[in-house]
């Protein structure tokens, strides 16, 4: 840390470096639990895709490949901005113009928040369309547009059940991520010494990237079955 004087070291730690290591390690362990949290659903996905491949292929035809690709790109741009912010706050030296740093961080993180909202808007529009077509799983599910092989066995429903469960859980994580990044944008753009929050920003950044990575897998698994 080039500017450790402004960082308060919490009681259990000897110095700011140790505190930063703990924050980063703690976040990575949390992300490992998140891998397993989504992992339960990925196991379910693997099982049903293995058993009902036909249904997954039919189901994925309802999805927009380009739309999903666009959503992926939106998330990746957000990730780039978060990485740049994290880089800026860590590398900035003590004598840097704090006002300029504040403005940069606020701008990057604000833009990331908007990108997150854009992603969710696209996703919810997609939900709206699917629900409109009667493809929301449950008693009201309308399988009539699908071939008999996946319609009569109801296996087509499983694709949509998993789609809504997995993208829904991802969307929930996005909502949390948007709140955190948006909160950081406000906090950092108003703070006298943004670098005090470097550990917090790194942790939230890791979370944001992780949520991205989940989507990197969800996209081919639901949109690109073909």
């Amino acid at each position, binding site marked *: 840390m080039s500017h450790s004087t402004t960082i308060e070291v919490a009681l259990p730690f000897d110095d700011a470096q140790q505190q930063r290591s703990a924050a980063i390690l703690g976040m990575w362990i949390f992300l490992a639990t*998140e891998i397993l949290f989504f992992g339960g659903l990925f196991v379910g996905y693997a*099982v049903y895709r293995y058993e009902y491949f036909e249904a997954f292929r039919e189901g994925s035809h309802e999805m927009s*490949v380009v739309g999903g690709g666009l959503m992926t790109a939106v998330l990746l741009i957000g990730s*780039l901005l978060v990485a740049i912010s994290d880089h800026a706050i860590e590398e900035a030296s003590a004598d840097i113009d704090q006002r300029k740093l504040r403005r940069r961080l606020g701008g990057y993180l604000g833009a990331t928040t908007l990108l997150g909202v854009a992603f969710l808007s696209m996703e919810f529009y997609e939900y709206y369309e699917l629900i409109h077509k009667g493809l929301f799983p449950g008693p009201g599910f309308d399988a009539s547009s699908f071939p008999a092989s996946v319609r009569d066995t109801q296996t087509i429903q499983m694709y949509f059940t998993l789609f809504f469960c997995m993208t829904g859980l991802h969307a929930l994580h996005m909502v949390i991520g948007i709140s955190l990044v948006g909160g950081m944008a406000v906090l950092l753009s108003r703070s006298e010494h943004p670098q005090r929050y470097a550990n917090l920003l790194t942790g939230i950044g890791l979370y944001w990237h992780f949520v991205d*990575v989940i989507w990197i897998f969800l996209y081919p698994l639901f*949109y690109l079955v073909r």
Partner: protein
Amino acid sequence: MSHSAELKPLFYNFAALMVLLAITIGMSYVDLGAFNLFVALLIAGIKTFLVALIFMNLRSTSNVSRLAAVGGLLWLGFALILTAADYHSRGWNEAQAHDLIEVEQARP
């Protein structure tokens, strides 16, 4: 900024991710049979690796943090492989296909 040179890896990484995104979309239109899934997952894996290494700074973080990341994936692997051991050898799919309709009819 004086450190703009160090930002370069971030931009290169982003460019690589976009290229991979384009490839994964393109490949989905080529019928490779079962290999489509393999290719899609391989590309997703490479993208994940890049995000973790560059954006999430795993290249310069402590070994323990790397262990946490790898551990999470490894344990997910345990869950997948041993569950697959059951489904692959159970023969459920064949039985399921004609039983389903009877179950549906038997339901009140």
